[in-house]
């Protein structure tokens, strides 16, 4: 089966530090992968390179077999906006926007009319159990609620792959598990693959495949 997203021989250096040292990885449609490893092992760098935030110093990333590394900055930006979704630690929502506006933002950026985008965002908030919170701002929600809004935002435009960078890092264990359940369920419904970078073994255990990094290389891959 052809992976929807693949990294081949990925190398990334920061000065003399080898963050990624020849990583090969493939992610299939709808697959859930957890990237784990100690601090400094290259987890976040791998996420950045795979999602097109960073250009690799060596190797290349392919989306549906097309090279991402050769794309311009604006083309990679468009790719992130349309084909990928992101869930960050603490949500990283726009503080001034309401929950529904945050969730609708990718759709609006894609040119969808206001009413349609907001209606779509409301649907996702409903699916994620956030009815009644549509007009609240991030500062008026709990951490778990804000992360659910972030999931709605990540899924609203129906991306191919969702990248989650320590999505439960700022949540307690139970809320983290709930949030992860919501993410996985929503991703499954939309058919999106999920790449989760995490320190939390319990969260990683929810993935079908765990990729453990060490010193910028894949140390081991474990299938659930």
């Amino acid at each position: 089966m052809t992976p929807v997203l693949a990294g081949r021989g990925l190398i990334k250096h920061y000065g003399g530090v080898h963050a990624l040292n020849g990583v090969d990885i493939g992610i299939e449609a709808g697959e859930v992968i957890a990237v784990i490893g100690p601090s400094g092992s290259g987890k976040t760098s791998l996420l950045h390179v795979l999602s097109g935030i960073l250009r690799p110093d060596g190797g290349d990333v392919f989306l549906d077999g097309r090279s991402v590394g050769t794309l311009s900055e604006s083309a990679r930006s468009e790719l992130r906006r349309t084909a990928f979704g992101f869930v960050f630690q603490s949500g990283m929502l726009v503080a001034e926007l309401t929950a529904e506006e945050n969730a609708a933002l990718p759709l609006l950026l894609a040119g969808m009319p206001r009413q349609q985008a907001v209606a779509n965002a409301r649907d996702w908030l409903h699916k994620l159990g956030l009815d009644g919170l549509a007009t609240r701002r991030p500062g008026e929600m709990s951490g778990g609620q804000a992360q659910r809004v972030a999931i709605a935002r990540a899924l609203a435009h129906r991306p191919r792959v969702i990248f989650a960078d320590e999505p439960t890092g700022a949540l307690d264990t139970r809320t983290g598990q709930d949030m992860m359940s919501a993410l996985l369920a929503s991703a499954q419904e939309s058919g999106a693959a999920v790449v989760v970078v995490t320190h939390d073994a319990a969260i990683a255990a929810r993935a079908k495949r765990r990729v453990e990094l060490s010193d910028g290389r894949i140390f081991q891959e474990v299938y659930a």
Partner: protein
Amino acid sequence: MSVFRIALAVLRNDSRSRISTALVTVGVALGVSLVLWLASAPHALQERADRTAWRDGDNSVSQTDNRAQVVMATNVDQFDGKLIHRYDITRAHVGGFVSLPPGIREFPEPGQVLLSPALAALVKATPPEKLGDRFPGQLVDEIGPQALEYPDELVAIIGHDVGTVDGWALTGLGGKVGYAADNADMLYLLTRIGMVVLIVPCLVLVASAARLTATRRERRLAALRLAGATPTQVIAMAAIETVVGAVLGSVIAVLAAEPLSHLTAQIPWGGGTWQPGDFTSGPLFTAFIAVLAPVLVVGAAVLGLRRVVDKPLSTAAAQTRRKISPARLLGLVLAGAVFLLGTTVATNQIGGRDRFTVVLVGLGAVGLALVLAGPVVTALVGRYFVARWRKPSTLLAGRRLLGDPVASFRAAAGVVVAVFAGSLALTMLPGIEDQVRPFSGPWKDSAIVADSVGKNTDVIGQLRARLAEHKLDAEVVPLVSGYLRSTSDKYGPSYQAVIASCKDAAKVLSGLSASDCVDGPAVYLPLGYQSSMHDLEFAKGNRSPNSDVPAPKRLPEGIPLRPIAGDAQIMVIDPAVFPDLAAQPTGAATTTTPSNRDAVYTAVVRLLPDVPVADNLRDSSHSATLMDDLRRATAIGLGLMALLSGASAAVAAAGSVIDRRRTFGALIAAGTPVRVLARALRREVVLPVLVATLGACLAGMVVGLGLLDVTHSISGRGEALLNFWILAPAAAGFVVALAAAAACGPVLRTFSAKDYSYE
């Protein structure tokens, strides 16, 4: 590690804190420099007044008084648009003592002349018949700078024989303290207005600079607070971080004050520049301002930490929505009331120069009230765009304006105050121009008129001979100056009148044409005056002191009163009406052409050195100088404001971007185009400016009208002349805001998608 060391470590290791400190330094240095400079204006005016105190006639006595040391006639000439202060002087008694002021080393005896260096150079470079002959005698010395108002002032002191000068007897020239009068009140008021309106953008710049790293600092201090630091330790840390920049700025301003005073001394006012050292403030005042500025800045920084001290948890975790109270608008009402009270006090002339205090406080209060009301307007603008957005950039900007109007308005605050000051200036300038414009005198611009020749005799014949000698094509019109009034109404007005041939007078009098003249005795009156003129008598007028005024003479019966078609300001009496008076002219009006004007002027003042000469060009030159001064002062003030407000808007806009670095990083990571974010940021800055500047423009216009009323009370005239140019500051403010908003772009481009994970 002590609190002090932690604060210093932050400054050493955090480049953004260092940038913030540098900007605080710049803001405080600018603010303190401006205050020291503008506050030194009264000292500068007093220095000028002291240097010219020897010319004041405030110690005049009767010529027969034993205390009289000199007799001095004061006149103002003009040459090539420049005013020349001329003093014809003589000892009051032969061989009598005369006290001299600093800058005048010796008293000019008959046949001797003292000239200022600039006038001496001008005389040297000009043909004598055009200028030098006005100051007959040997140049024995130059007048020193201590006796000159400004370095390039044109001054002549001409010595005469005892008893030949028709002027004021004075008890001496030295040992006098000057009174800063004339247009000094205007400069005093302008500098105070400048201080009030310029200090606000300085404060905004300092506040913007201090806020540049505010979010990060608040989080850092909240974390320290959560880690066990006491409120005092947190406050001390914030104070130390701020005090470094504030003290540095203050020290720079104090050190720069002296060199800057030389620079500001080059700004002309009242016809010339200033002596180095005029613009200096006393050491006590300088020390007071130098200490006050850092105290205020640190105080503001500490006050801004209330949230960190009281609720460290909420600060460390996230931001809460800041609500804005419409009660802020009450500030405008209160400030308006104070300003209104101030204008009432100032226009009623209560309390000398102190009468301006309340109006200046009101002016400052209006500026501050605008800044206070700005966030309310910002929130309203935000609400409008949130309700009507179509594009994400408009949504982002609208939500930001509504969500944190105080922070959003910060970038606009300086611009709003600048627009307020700009529209205030444009409201006032035409009115002030009207105030300083000379009344168009009764004489034609081409005429040079000595309507009272003083003690000089046979002036007409001598003047004609002198003009002929120099082959000057000019006519001399003999005249007798005086007043016409009605004998039946002893409380009725007197009208200025001259006895002169109508056809001759038409050559020198404005508004009178030769076609108005008829043969035979007649009195020529401006249109509309005939009905009120009954039982007329003519009284000779004489401006010279110590002269006897002869008794009035009744107008003979049957003399026709003829209307003048033009707008003449003087009534003309044909010599045939009073042949005996006409036989002894008391004045002489001389016609000139542009090519012979200076030479004719020179001939007149050579013959009549101690009498006042009417000259429209001199008067218009004086008012043009005043207007140039005002325009220059306004341009400098508005230029500084535009610079300061633009800088503070750019710093505030950049600060607001830096504050949200992680959010923007996340948005960029999620594929949001930087151009969309840049557009949203530009709208954030520009939209509130667009609305607030229109309000500020209106406020500036209203306050300008009030201040015009105050200046009206100083000069006695000046009407408000409003036009569409009044909107120019709002347009300029919008452009400045747009330029400042452009600062967001480069800052935004320094962010990368990775920035969401930093901090």
